[in-house]
């Protein structure tokens, strides 16, 4: 047998959706994480309820790489429909655990096979008729535990953690795992080099969180009180988590009254409309959606921009155009969302690149929105939003809410009622607002999406229109400096990378790989639109800068070129990945090796 490969492997479970395999995969993930080993799960699932192929990739690296890998070390082949195709994904020398009944005629000979009679074992060893289908998946958890040497204590932890809300389910699941574990011990001797060993030093203080969980928690800590949404993959879980957290933490125990109102609207038009109505009336309000939903929200977003109403809008991006691939990831909404709606509309867009930023940006989006009285979009994606990510624990906020420039009754008394809703008193483009219910005769004004002057009166005056549009530009310029600045990691290299959002994890790994090959590359991660001046300065300091993103047309690449002085434009190049699978590091290293003659 060749030399051992320890804690550095990728497991891929090929199963059937709706069969309970996701639970089995999560148990395995939590068990390995409990051993102190870094895990990076990616769930590739169909837009379907039951019966179609689904894959779960669990990448394990001692360094804690979190990008997807396209090399599979251990395949769990549980789906006869994709069995032949799945075999192709395994790297030479890799391992296949498969249902014994699958035909092995003419299969590859460069990999190790461990056939297991899963169906027979399920029939003979699992007593419960109703749970047999679900528990059959647990058997492969046991086989993998045996194969890789996962201690039984870690498996127990994984099951208990996964069934935290349903502790009664723990024994029956452990029994099913034991069936696979025993089968491994009784029937196989190890023919492959892969092993897992407990580790220290990387995962301490870290937790596993989905981006949508993080964003839901962020919204709660940001003080959201009105949430209106319409179910759509991959955004739904954000509001569902928020409902669960609000029910747990934000219901008055004595009265049963809710401090967060959540409405499942009739469509995305109504969802964003309700959030805008609530924002106008002074609540911290939000909606969350994806692709088709964000298209439907275009008109209302323009109203909120022009009438200057705070609202937070999450877009958990999926593949388009149109319905596209609802369960595949993408970063192709950035260009659309930035100027969502007709006319000269432009928005503040936050671009979280980690689950920790999903939490922080979701929380702070409400401050930005109140301060600048405009919609704030938080652009996440399916990969970030729906997969579990290893992350440091989130920090409790040290600052209170910033509600921005709101005039109270007392303020209006001091001003003797002299104010104008759209009058730029401070020269920063941000005007003062009053909230309905303010008990002063001068508080009321008429909010409208039609042309208005400084006093919010209807006007078709050319001068008033242009003046207002210029002020809105000024306001965005003020906001631009207050949004999260790019994160720059620089060591004087001649070439640089620019990325945003979930591409971050692939960039980290690509830079490590290239540095190991002797080619250091600098990195700037964009975290908000409109773009910071730091982007142009970064380009100025480098010979070539590659913008890496997960869309076909290089949308951030375009936005950056538009923002650059002419002499810098040619320095910027584009790397694009857009097949719906989360970007692997190889999608960055391979073009760079070619284009920059990096020694491979």
């Amino acid at each position, binding site marked *: 047998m060749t030399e051992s490969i320890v804690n550095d492997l990728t497991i891929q479970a090929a199963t059937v959706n709706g069969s309970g395999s996701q639970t089995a995969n999560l148990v395995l993930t939590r068990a390995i994480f409990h051993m102190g080993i870094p895990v990076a799960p990616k769930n590739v699932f169909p837009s379907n309820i039951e019966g179609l192929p689904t894959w779960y990739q669990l990448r394990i690296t001692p360094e804690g790489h979190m990008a997807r890998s396209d090399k599979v070390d251990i395949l769990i082949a549980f789906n006869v429909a994709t069995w032949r195709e799945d075999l192709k994904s395994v790297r030479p020398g890799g391992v296949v655990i498969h249902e014994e009944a699958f035909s092995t005629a003419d299969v590859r000979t460069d990999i190790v096979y461990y056939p297991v009679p899963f169906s027979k074992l399920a029939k003979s060893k699992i007593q419960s008729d109703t749970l047999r289908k679900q528990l059959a998946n647990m058997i492969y958890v046991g086989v993998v535990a045996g194969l890789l040497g996962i201690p039984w204590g870690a498996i127990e932890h994984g099951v208990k953690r996964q069934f935290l809300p349903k502790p009664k389910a723990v024994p029956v699941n452990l029994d099913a795992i034991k069936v696979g574990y025993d089968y491994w011990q009784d029937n196989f001797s190890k023919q492959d080099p892969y092993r897992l060993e407990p580790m220290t030093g990387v995962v301490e203080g870290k937790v596993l969180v989905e981006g949508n969980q993080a964003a839901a928690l962020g919204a709660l800590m940001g003080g959201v009180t009105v949430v209106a949404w319409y179910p759509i993959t991959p955004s739904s879980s954000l509001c569902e988590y928020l409902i669960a957290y609000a029910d747990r933490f934000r219901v008055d125990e004595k009265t049963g009254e809710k*401090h967060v109102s959540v409405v499942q609207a009739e469509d995305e038009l109504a969802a964003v409309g309700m959030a805008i109505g609530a924002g106008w009336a002074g609540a911290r309000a939000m909606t969350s959606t994806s692709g088709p939903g964000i298209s439907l929200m275009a008109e209302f977003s323009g109203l909120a921009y022009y009438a200057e109403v705070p609202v937070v809008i999450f877009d958990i991006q999926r593949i388009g155009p149109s319905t596209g691939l609802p369960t595949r990831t993408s970063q192709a909404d950035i260009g659309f969302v930035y100027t969502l709606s007709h006319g000269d509309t432009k928005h503040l867009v936050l671009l979280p690149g980690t689950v920790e930023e999903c939490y922080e940006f979701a929380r702070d989006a409400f401050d930005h929105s109140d301060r600048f009285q405009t919609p704030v979009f938080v652009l996440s994606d399916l990969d970030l939003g729906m997969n579990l990510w290893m992350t440091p624990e989130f920090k409790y906020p040290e600052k209170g809410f910033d509600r921005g420039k709101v005039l109270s009754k007392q303020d209006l008394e001091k001003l003797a009622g002299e104010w104008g809703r759209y009058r730029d008193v401070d020269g920063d483009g941000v005007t003062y607002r009053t909230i309905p219910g303010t008990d002063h005769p001068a508080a009321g004004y008429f909010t409208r999406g039609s042309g208005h002057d400084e006093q919010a009166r209807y006007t078709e005056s050319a001068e008033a229109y242009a003046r207002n549009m210029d002020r809105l530009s000024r306001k965005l310029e003020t906001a631009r400096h207050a949004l999260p600045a790019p994160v720059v990691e620089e060591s004087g290299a001649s070439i640089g990378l620019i990325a945003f959002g979930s591409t971050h994890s692939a960039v980290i790994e690509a830079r490590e790989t290239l540095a190991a090959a002797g080619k250091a590359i600098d990195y700037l991660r964009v975290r908000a639109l409109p773009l910071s001046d730091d982007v142009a300065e970064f380009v100025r300091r480098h010979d070539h800068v590659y913008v890496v993103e997960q869309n076909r047309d290089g949308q951030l690449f375009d936005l950056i070129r538009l923002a650059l002085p002419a002499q810098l434009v040619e320095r910027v190049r584009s790397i694009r990945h857009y097949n719906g699978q989360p970007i692997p590091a190889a999608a960055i290293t391979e073009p760079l090796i070619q284009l920059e003659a990096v020694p491979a």
Partner: protein
Amino acid sequence: MSTTVNRAGLARDAYKGAATTLCAGCGHNSITNHMIKALYELGVEPHLLAKMSGIGCSSKTPAYFVETAHGFNGVHGRMPALTTGAHLANRQLIMLGVSGDGDTASIGLGQFMHMIRRNVDCTYIIEDNGTYGLTKGQFSATADLGSVQKKGAVNTFQPIDPCAVALALGCSFVARSFSGDGKQVVPLIKAAIAHRGTAILDIISPCVTFNDHDGSTKSYSWVKDHEESIADVSFIPYFEEVQVDYEPGTVRDVRLHDGSHILLKKLGDDHDPTDRRAAIKVIEEGRAEGHLVTGLLYVDAEMSDFATTEHIPQRPLKDLGEDELRMTRDEFVQFMSEFA
């Protein structure tokens, strides 16, 4: 010279708005005046009033009354969504929505229906003229089958009757009236505001420019000739005493949630406004006979409104601070540890 003031200490002038920019003689202007009268007489405090609208001639009108109140002229057909959100943010506000037949019965039909389904506490006035005024005279979806456009085109489609739709959905307050009938409109507006839940008030409001000719069923002359009121309506707010001097058996008394009363004096056949099926029948019979039935068609004063159903506190959600919205530091630490 002394000025008469209402219980809010305000004169009638305090309920006026900017000068109207609609056509002289537009039914909507009459409704604006009815609204001013109703709000003044109810003693509504302007700072608690939220005037909401969509897009169209009707939706401009919130600028023409109670200038000191907040107003929101949103996007076409979406007044219900804005109203729902604002109401959730602050239950203390009196939500008064003004829409039109284009705004409600075409693009806004979905939101109209879903607002009713939730029974959001608001008044929803439809200024219904059967035509698109701002875009110069196209038929709207409430235009009757066979009614004639100004240039002679005949409407070939069935009308959508907002009251019939509302009744079919189980709306908790449904009324129809005519802009020229202030005696009926004013008490109906007051009752709609006092009602806790979605109150739909479809007011036929002739468009003098595009839909006031022979062959129209939304013209002043047609409505005057065909209006059939089911009962004389009067409204007694909770802060006034009910003094009835009608003969027993001639008046129905509907008590609203806030203690106000709607008194309905029988005119022809007795209509029970708490009987939804009877209300549908009255509309259908009127339609078959070519009459426009007006008055309070249906009311259910007991139905739970949206915010109550949803356990939203009376104290405005907008006023809650960090200590009431964030989890505590201990809760947060415990919560994070659950992700390990």
